């Protein structure tokens, strides 16, 4: 067996070890390389920045714990920004398995920024129906969510004063890890009820949402951990996303090195066989 053949059949545990080290070492010894802000992320930031105090901001946390490493930092950064701007923050989820996580997330950031439930923000929780919930909220928010996650009647919440449906929402961001997510919010929500909208998603989903972004159907897109890191930089509060960028840098380069190596061995083997 030649070297190329041996290298192409390398034990996958060596690759696992390499990826493990590339993730772990930068987390233990961070470098902190500068992160360039993209126009996609800036679109969301600038819109929230331009909203007057007391405007209604809806954040739909449409992911479950599987996508937590990428989307949780995005949600934290967005909530910190919205609370800093003193917006009226309405949060909810279309993913039943993400309900507990979403509640903890909202409560944690609200506590950190000294915001009060019911007055400054609310978490509506989950309601069955997927896209039907979006249409129902567009028709009548109180019908879709008669009570919030804590069981308080939504009609009695001071934060929802003057908010009857999605038409009264100033800006909406869906942080989606699949369906229902950003696309459903656009198709069933924004298109009919005419509110401004931005999106956030996992890294692998981002390329699929670029057509919505380029056509102006969403005004910004926070893609993956990189997007979250950019947002953290924009609000000036570095968190887990910025910390994770070194690890992501190292793993990306490791995968690129592996792909180049595998191709070099592949072509060398082919040359040997042809020759």
């Amino acid at each position, binding site marked *: 067996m030649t070297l190329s053949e041996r290298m192409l059949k390398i034990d996958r545990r060596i690759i696992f070890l390499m990826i493990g080290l590339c993730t772990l070492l930068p987390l233990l010894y961070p470098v902190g390389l500068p992160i360039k802000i993209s126009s996609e992320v800036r679109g969301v930031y600038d819109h929230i920045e331009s909203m007057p105090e007391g405007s209604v901001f809806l954040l739909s946390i449409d992911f479950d714990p599987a996508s937590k490493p990428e989307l949780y930092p995005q949600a934290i950064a967005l909530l910190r920004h919205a609370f800093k701007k003193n917006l009226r923050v309405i949060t909810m989820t279309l993913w039943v398995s993400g309900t507990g996580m979403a509640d903890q997330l909202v409560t944690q950031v609200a506590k950190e920024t000294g915001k009060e439930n019911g007055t400054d923000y609310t978490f509506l929780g989950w309601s069955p129906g997927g896209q039907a919930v979006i249409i129902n909220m567009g028709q009548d928010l109180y019908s*879709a969510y008669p009570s919030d996650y804590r069981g308080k009647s939504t009609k009695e919440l001071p934060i929802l004063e003057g908010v009857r449906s999605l038409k009264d929402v100033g800006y909406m961001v869906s942080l989606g890890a699949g369906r229902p997510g950003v696309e459903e919010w656009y198709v069933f929500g924004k298109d009919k009820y005419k509110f401004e909208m931005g999106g956030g998603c996992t890294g692998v989903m981002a390329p699929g949402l670029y057509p919505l972004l380029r056509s102006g159907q969403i005004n910004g897109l926070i893609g993956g951990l*990189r997007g979250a890191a950019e947002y953290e930089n924009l609000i000036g509060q570095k968190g887990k996303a910025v910390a994770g960028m070194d690890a992501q840098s190292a793993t990306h380069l490791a995968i690129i090195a592996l792909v180049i190596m595998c191709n070099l061995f592949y072509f060398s083997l082919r040359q040997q066989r042809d020759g």
Partner: protein
Amino acid sequence: MIFLRRQLPLLITLVTGLLFAAQYYVPHPASEQMLTSATKWLQIVGGFALILGVTSLFHQHAVKIRRQEAGWGYSLVLYVGMLGTIAVGLWTNGKESVEGTMTAFGWIYNYMMVPLQGTMFAILAFFIASAAYRSFRAKSREAAVLLVAAVIVMMGRVPLGEYLIPLSGDVSSWILNVLNSSVRRAILIGVSLGAVALSFKIIFGVERSYLGGGKE
């Protein structure tokens, strides 16, 4: 019986299909009220669909356990996990915490579901790296183009890549915004036209597979 099994569902599909397609273009209060009621029904039906899904899952795994088919032990774990979670969820009224104190349901969610789902997703990185090494080879011109594009985007999406090759960020952004967007848009338009055609076929009763294949 044929009327109930065939003609009535076709009639309901035709009437509701046409009605709700037209509703989108009619902003009259009566039309909006109809949409409000229908979506409320949809939410309720969605809730029942969840019960149906859980029942079907239970039935499928009960058969596996009864017949002691290969991997029936996993079905047993599923049964214990689901019944345990449902029981604890009902006992705690579905709340993860009460006045800041974590309930048993919250404990299951935070210390079992969250780490399990996180682990499943995290090991993907290892398998992707291994799969990339084994199969991402420039065996043809098309594969070579894909390979080069992937390497540029991977470089351009991380700070270290941009630091080493400053142009990679802009090139990666161009690939995503121009090449990727145009191709995705073409696919989206094709899929959407297909969905419109299929909807018409269902509404007008040409496509009937959703009715099932029972004897008439």
